[in-house]
C-alpha cells in the first residue's frame, strides 16, 4: 500500500526500483570533488547555447549523483600539504579563511632523523653515515638539510585538513543545486550491461542507479574500481604493487610550542629508514603529524600505529608536541605505484579518476591536487560531450578526457616519477639515489623495476637481533594472549616501550575512540571476509593482523585472523598486505562496500 503525504511523498518508503541519472559518481574524494565542482560551474556558466538537458530524464536539468561510503563527506583522511595548482585554477581567489584548518605554506624544512634508541634497522653504510651526521646534528637528534630538492617543495601551496576541505567543497557543490552528494551510501558493484558499464549497484538494498556515465573515484581500495580491474584487466605492464599506509594524528599543540602557522617538516630516517614522516602546522595551534609505512618496508610485522608513536616521540618532533593533546587520528592506504598503477582510464560508460586512477605522484609526494586535476579534466571533457550531444563511449571519453590528461602537467610529472621509487627494491641508499636521479634528470635516469620480492619470514627479518627461538617463543606467547606480535618483537629488538600520557600517547584502541571515533553500522554483515579460511590457517605471515590500522583484525583460534568490524577504519591495508591468493592477483581478503569507519572531520 502506498501512502501519499500532502507534500506528495510516499511515507511507505521502500521502493527498490532502479533510479535513472545521467552521471553517477562513486566516492566523494578530491577527484570527485574536482569533477563535480568543475562540472557544476560549467553547467551554470552563462552561455548563449541552449542549457544542457538531462538525457535520462528529458526536460529536466542534468541528473548528477554522487555516492560516498563514509558516514559524512568530511570523514576522509590525508595530511595535505599541496602546491594546489589544480585547486587554485578551479578557485583562483581561494580564501583559506573560509576553510577551517587551512593555511598557506610558510617555512618548509627537510629533517633527517637519527635513531636515538639504536633500534631501527639501519644498514651498515647508514650507521656509519649517522656517526658523521651526529657531529653536525642538533641535540634533538635531527639534521636539517640545507636544501630541499625543488621536486619536493610545496612553497606557495596550502596546508589543508582533507576532511574540512572536502566538507567545504561538498557544500559548494550541493548549494549549486546541480548535483547531489549522498554520504553513508556505499556502492557495491558496477552494473554491467551489454559489455559496458551502465551504472552502479548500491550496497544497502541493491538499488540500481542507471546512468550513461559512471565516474569511478572510490580510491585505491574501492570495490568498484577493483571490480573494473578484474573484469577489464590492467593495461599491459601495469600493476598495483606499491602501497603505503598513511597514518596521522591531528594535535592541539602545547602552549610551549613556538612553531608558526604554515610550518612544514618533511622527515626521513626514522623510525625506520624506509618510513617518511610529516608535520604541518595549521592555524589556531593545531598540527597534523604522521608517517607513511610503505609496502617495501619488508618487515613481516609492519605496523603503522607503533611506528607513529615512535615518530612523534622522536626528540626533534616531541619537543614541539610534548604536552599536546590528540584531537583526531586516522589512517588510509595509498597507492604508490604511480603511473604503473594506472588502470584503463575509461571504457564505454565509465571513466576512472583520482588516486585509484594512478594519479598520485610518488616523487613529489603529492596526490590530492593531482586527483583534483583528474576530476577537473574529466568534467571539461564530459561537458563538451554533453553540449555536442555525443554519447559517453570509450572513444569519446578517450578523445575528450584521456587526451586532456595526456597533455597535462599531471602526465608530464607522472612520467618523471615513473622510476623514482624503483631503487628502494634494492635498498635504502639506492632508493634515495633513484629518487634524486629521477628528480634531477626529469626522469631521464632511474632504476628499472625488479621482480617483486615475497615477504621475508620473521626469523630472517630479525636475524642478528633476535634468534629464531626467541621469535618462535614470542609468536607463541602473543598467539596465546591475543596480543599484537609487532609490539612484542619490537620491544625485544630494542624499541622502548611507549609510556602513555593519556592525551597524546594513548593505546591503539584509545586512538580509535578518542581520535578516530570509529563506528560501524549495526545489523550489517562483516565487510572484510577471509575467502578461504584454510589459506589463513596455513599462512605464517599474517601481515593482515599486524598492519591493520584499527586492530580490527586479530588472531583467533590457531592464530588465524578474525575480523571485528566495529574497529575497522576502512583503510584497506588488509587487501594489499595479504600474502595469500585465491586466484592469480586475487587476495584472500575480500573487502566489501560498507558504511561506517572514521567519524572525525579533521583528518
Amino acid at each position, binding site marked *: 500500500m502506498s501512502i501519499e503525504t500532502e*507534500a506528495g511523498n510516499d511515507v511507505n518508503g521502500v521502493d*527498490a526500483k532502479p533510479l535513472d541519472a545521467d552521471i553517477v559518481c562513486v566516492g566523494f574524494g578530491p577527484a570527485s570533488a574536482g569533477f563535480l565542482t568543475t562540472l557544476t560551474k560549467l553547467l551554470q556558466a552563462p552561455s548563449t547555447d541552449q542549457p544542457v538537458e538531462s538525457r535520462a530524464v528529458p526536460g529536466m536539468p542534468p541528473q548528477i549523483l554522487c555516492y560516498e561510503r563514509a558516514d559524512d563527506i568530511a570523514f576522509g583522511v590525508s595530511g595535505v600539504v599541496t602546491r594546489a595548482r589544480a585547486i587554485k585554477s578551479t578557485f583562483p581567489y581561494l580564501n583559506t579563511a573560509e576553510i577551517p584548518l587551512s593555511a598557506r605554506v610558510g617555512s618548509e624544512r627537510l629533517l633527517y632523523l637519527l635513531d636515538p634508541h639504536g633500534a631501527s634497522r639501519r644498514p651498515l653504510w647508514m650507521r656509519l653515515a649517522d656517526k658523521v651526521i651526529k657531529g653536525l646534528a642538533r641535540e634533538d637528534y635531527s639534521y636539517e638539510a640545507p636544501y630541499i630538492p625543488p621536486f619536493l617543495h610545496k612553497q606557495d601551496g596550502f596546508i589543508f585538513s582533507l576532511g*574540512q576541505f572536502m566538507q567545504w567543497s561538498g557544500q559548494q557543490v550541493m548549494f549549486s543545486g546541480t548535483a547531489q552528494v549522498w554520504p*553513508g551510501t556505499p556502492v557495491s558493484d558496477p552494473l554491467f550491461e551489454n559489455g559496458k558499464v551502465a551504472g552502479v549497484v*548500491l550496497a544497502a538494498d541493491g*538499488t540500481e542507479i542507471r546512468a550513461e556515465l559512471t565516474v569511478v573515484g572510490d580510491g585505491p581500495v574501492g570495490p568498484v574500481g577493483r571490480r573494473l580491474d578484474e573484469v577489464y584487466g590492467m593495461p599491459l605492464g601495469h600493476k598495483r604493487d606499491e602501497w603505503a599506509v598513511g597514518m596521522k594524528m591531528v594535535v592541539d599543540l602545547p602552549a610551549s610550542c613556538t612553531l608558526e602557522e604554515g610550518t612544514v617538516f618533511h622527515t626521513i630516517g626514522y623510525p625506520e629508514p624506509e618510513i617518511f614522516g610529516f608535520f604541518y602546522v595549521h592555524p589556531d595551534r593545531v598540527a597534523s603529524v604522521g608517517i607513511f609505512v610503505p609496502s617495501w618496508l619488508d618487515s613481516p610485522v609492519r605496523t603503522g600505529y607503533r611506528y607513529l608513536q615512535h615518530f612523534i616521540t622522536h626528540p626533534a618532533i616531541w619537543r614541539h608536541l610534548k604536552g599536546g593533546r590528540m584531537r583526531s587520528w586516522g589512517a588510509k592506504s595509498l597507492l604508490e605505484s604511480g603511473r604503473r598503477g594506472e588502470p584503463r582510464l575509461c571504457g564505454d560508460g565509465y571513466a576512472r579518476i583520482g588516486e585509484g586512477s594512478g594519479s598520485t605522484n610518488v616523487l613529489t609526494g603529492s596526490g590530492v591536487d593531482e586527483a583534483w586535476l583528474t576530476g577537473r579534466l574529466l568534467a571539461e571533457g564530459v561537458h563538451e560531450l554533453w553540449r555536442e550531444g555525443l554519447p559517453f563511449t570509450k572513444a569519446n571519453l578517450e578523445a575528450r578526457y584521456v587526451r586532456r590528461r595526456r597533455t597535462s602537467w599531471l602526465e608530464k610529472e607522472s612520467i618523471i616519477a615513473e622510476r623514482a621509487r624503483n631503487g628502494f627494491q634494492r635498498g635504502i641508499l639506492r632508493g634515495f639515489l633513484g629518487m634524486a636521479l629521477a628528480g634531477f634528470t626529469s626522469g631521464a635516469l632511474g632504476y628499472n623495476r625488479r621482480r617483486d620480492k615475497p615477504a621475508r619470514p620473521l626469523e630472517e627479518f630479525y636475524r642478528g637481533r633476535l634468534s629464531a627461538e626467541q621469535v618462535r617463543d614470542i609468536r607463541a606467547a602473543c598467539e596465546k594472549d591475543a596480543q599484537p606480535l609487532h609490539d612484542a618483537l619490537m620491544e625485544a629488538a630494542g624499541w622502548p616501550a611507549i609510556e602513555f600520557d593519556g592525551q597524546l600517547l594513548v593505546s591503539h584502541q584509545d586512538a580509535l575512540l578518542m581520535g578516530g571515533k570509529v563506528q560501524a553500522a549495526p545489523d550489517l554483515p562483516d565487510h572484510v571476509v577471509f575467502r578461504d579460511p584454510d589459506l589463513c590457517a596455513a599462512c605464517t605471515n599474517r601481515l593482515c593482523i599486524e598492519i591493520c590500522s584499527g586492530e580490527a583484525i586479530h588472531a583467533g583460534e590457531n592464530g588465524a585472523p578474525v575480523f571485528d568490524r566495529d574497529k575497522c577504519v576502512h583503510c584497506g591495508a588488509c587487501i594489499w598486505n595479504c600474502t595469500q591468493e585465491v586466484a592469480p592477483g586475487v587476495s584472500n581478503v575480500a573487502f566489501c562496500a560498507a558504511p561506517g569507519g572514521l567519524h572525525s572531520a579533521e583528518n
Partner: protein
Amino acid sequence: MPYQIIVCGGIAPDPLQTLEPAMGPAGPALKNEMMLPAVFDPWAAHALYEAAHLARQFPGSSIRVVTLAPKAKLQQVMMTVAQKLPFELIPIDGPGGGFTDAVEVSKVLAQAISAIPGIDMSQFLLFGGWESATRGSGCVIPMVAARLGIEDCFLAVDELKIEDGALVIKERVEGGLLQVSRCSAPPAALAWATGSLPEPPNHPQTGMANMRAMMPALQRAKPAGLTGEGFSVPQATLPAQQRQTQVVKDKPAAEISRELLEWIKG
C-alpha cells in the same frame, strides 16, 4: 484519520566528537563548532521516526520538519536524514548550538509553523525531542505548544497508540514511573524521550525525492534573527571525564562489572 505531524528538531554535533566550550565575542560557544560533523538531534530523531511510524498507519498523513540550524550544516545533515523517510523540510537559518534562549527559539519555531498554509488543528500533532543533545532545557516544545494554543502537552513520551481516534500516550514521570494518558483528539504536543523504534535504513529513492524540494527550501531559508536580548550564559563546562583502558581476554562479565564498580567508586 490522517494526521498533520510537525516535528521540531535541530542539529547537534556528532555525539562521538570531543566538545569544548569556548567564550566567543557573542558569549559561550563550542570551539570549532562549524568544523564538527553534525547529526540530526538524537532526541528529535526519535520523534521523527515515531512520526513516520504513525503516518504509515494513517494514509494521507503528512510530516514536516521545522528546523532552526545553520543552513550549510543542515544541508549536509539532511543528505543522511532525507534518505530515511519522506518529509517536507522547513528550514530556518540560525545558530545550532545550545547557547540560545529557549524562549526566542520557541517563538521562531511557532512563527514558522503558524506560517504553514492549510494546518488543520483537528489533525495537528506537534512532535519534538523532550530534550536535545545540545541542551537539556526540556522546555522548547511546551513553549511552542503554548504559543500555538495547544493545551495538551506530554513530556518524555515513550509510546503513542491510536485507539478509536484517541491518543493513548505513555510518558515518563518522576520516580521512574510511567504514566498512560488518553487524549481524545488532536491537537496535542508530544515531546519524545527515546521511543522504541530503530533508525530506519537509508533509502536512496526517498532521499532523492525529498531533496528535490529540500534544496530550494534550504536556499530560500530565512535568517532566524535571534537577538539574545536579556539572555546570558555566564559559564559553560563539560562534565569531568576520566578514561582508563584495559585490553583483556576471556574475562568473565561478573569480574568486569565488579572492577567497573570499584573504578567508579574510586
